[in-house]
């Protein structure tokens, strides 16, 4: 897999040297074989070094990487069995949010996630992960069913936002998202949400009112797409990188701000370099938190989730400005 992000330039150069040597195949001299070993080690070290100090904007690029594992990939890699439940029973089946009964480590959970789509055809089918009201309403249907059967809910969040199209407005995009927030806050089963790639504003939060909110190491979670924030506050989308830094959209910053419960480490060079390893870490984290939450009864689950979100916010208590 090529190193194709701009900050990966030094890695791409190393890799080029490496492949030039490797192409020689059996004709390699012992000296050159040693060189390969050294280059490989250097590549690993350099990758680790670069990825240990990514900026917010660099995380945005990794989170959006075209080869990053998506919900469907994780389902295939993590679940022993999966039966997709489709449609909102009201309008249609939005492929931008998919979910169903999933067996993870012998237990059945309701797994729901955004799906961006890998190739062009799938991307079109999934609207690039921009969900419509029927997607959120399907998610709601599945969550209510999970509650009915006492199943834990796991959501995988990966969207640049809810779809801003006319048909979605006609069918009540705002209402659909709002209702998810309301209902999720009262669910009597454990809910674990993981931001696996992009957590884009309300469209992400609509699957995010959980007892535990986890993020993959290089995922992002943001109030507005950096480009959108740049267009409003900097008056030009070319300032997207500044907007990303200013809003602190990267997982590490959000963890430091206390807005995320845990970071899930990604494979060397990002989840896109090793889907299987990424899925293994994700699965382990989900199971750990499901185990912990299993100790809480229904009332405690609702209470813990409420308190978690009730506590969010930073403000001062001071003398009010004299208002007229």
């Amino acid at each position, binding site marked *: 897999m090529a190193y194709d992000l701009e900050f990966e330039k030094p890695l791409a150069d190393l890799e080029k040297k490496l492949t030039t040597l490797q192409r020689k195949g059996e004709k390699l001299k012992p000296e050159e074989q040693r060189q390969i070993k050294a280059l490989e080690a250097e590549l690993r070290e350099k990758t680790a070094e670069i990825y240990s100090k990514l900026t917010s904007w660099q995380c945005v690029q990794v989170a959006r990487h075209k080869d990053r594992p998506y919900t469907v990939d994780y389902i295939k890699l993590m679940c022993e069995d999966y039966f997709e439940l489709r449609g909102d029973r009201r309008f249609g089946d939005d492929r931008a949010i998919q979910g169903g009964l999933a067996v993870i480590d012998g237990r059945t959970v309701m797994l729901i996630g955004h799906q961006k789509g890998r190739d062009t055809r799938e991307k079109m089918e999934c609207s690039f992960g921009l969900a419509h009201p029927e997607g959120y309403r399907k998610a709601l249907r599945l969550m209510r069913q999970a509650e009915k059967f006492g199943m834990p809910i796991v959501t995988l969040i990966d969207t640049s*936002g*809810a*779809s*801003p*199209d*006319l048909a979605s*407005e*006609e069918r*009540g*995009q*705002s*209402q659909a*998202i*709002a*209702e998810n*927030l*309301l*209902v999720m*806050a*009262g669910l009597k089963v454990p809910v674990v949400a993981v931001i696996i790639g992009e957590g884009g*504003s*309300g469209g992400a*939060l*609509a699957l*995010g*009112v959980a007892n535990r909110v986890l993020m993959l190491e290089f995922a992002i*979670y*943001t*109030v*507005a797409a950096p480009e*959108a*924030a740049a*267009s*409003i*506050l*900097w*008056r030009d989308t070319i300032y997207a990188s*500044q*907007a990303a830094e*200013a*809003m*602190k*959209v990267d997982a590490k910053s959000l963890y430091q*701000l206390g*807005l995320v419960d845990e970071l899930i480490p990604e494979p060397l060079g990002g989840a896109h370099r090793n889907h299987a390893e990424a899925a293994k870490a994700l699965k382990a984290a989900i199971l750990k938190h499901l185990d912990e939450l299993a100790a809480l009864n229904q009332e405690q689950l609702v209470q813990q989730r*409420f308190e978690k*979100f*009730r506590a*969010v*916010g*930073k*403000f*001062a*208590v*001071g*003398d*009010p*400005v004299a*208002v*007229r």
Partner: protein
Amino acid sequence: MSDLTSADAQRAQAPDDLQPQGSRSIPGNLAVKCPKCRELLYGKDWEKNLKTCPRCSYHFRLSARERIDLLLDEGSFQEIDSNLLSVDPLNFVSRSQSYQAKLREEREKTGLNEAVIAGTGTIEGLPLALAVMDFAFIGGSMGSVVGEKVTRAIERALADRSALLIISTSGGARMQEGMFSLLQMAKTSAALTRLSEARVPYISLLTDPTTGGISASFAFLGDVILAEPGALIGFAGPRVIEQFMHQRLPADTNTAEFVLAHGMLDAVVPRRLLRPTLARLLRMYAGSKVKSVTH
């Protein structure tokens, strides 16, 4: 949330000739031009008409104070949590302006502490808890303080078991507070889950404009959802939709009337009917309790 593009935001922040700031800030409003039908309105008539155009019924924006004065029984309003002030949790700077400086500037400009005023009061003697947003303060955007004040107004309604009224006007979540802002959507909604379980009625009034994170949280969670005529209401602003779809939208897209026609509202209520309408609703939801109200 980025629900208004810069074009929308600029339009929303409306040039002065289109959007007078209210009689208090501009004492000598001799004449006002209706932005919709271009009619020149005599200032005093316009105010008597509750800042609506007599010709085309265009509803000008009102400040939170004006709305409280318009809707509540005189002298009944008791403000709560006016001492909550925004801080700058991310040390946010854009285009060389810090969020701190922006906050100071907005406080001076508007005479408000924040984009919402919360409190308790009565309408025709019927008690309620309320939160009223003000678009003049950073586009009515929701950061930690707006979220906290709205949440506390909800909790006040819950504690008093009195009806809740939230009057929304907002471009969405406040970007300068990043994820703290986005999560206010979850916080306010979670408080409403409790209010709903306690069977305390919540009336949501949407005014121009109500978009983004506000519409996608508490604004669309009312037991009754009302809107003023012509108000821009939606998840995305019209410019965002046009850019996304690469096509022009019909003129009525995301107006209150559009939203009503698509089944997302209970009624579009002209401004002069708001107070009696709210009173009727409060009375109906109060049911038998209303019999004990004496005044």
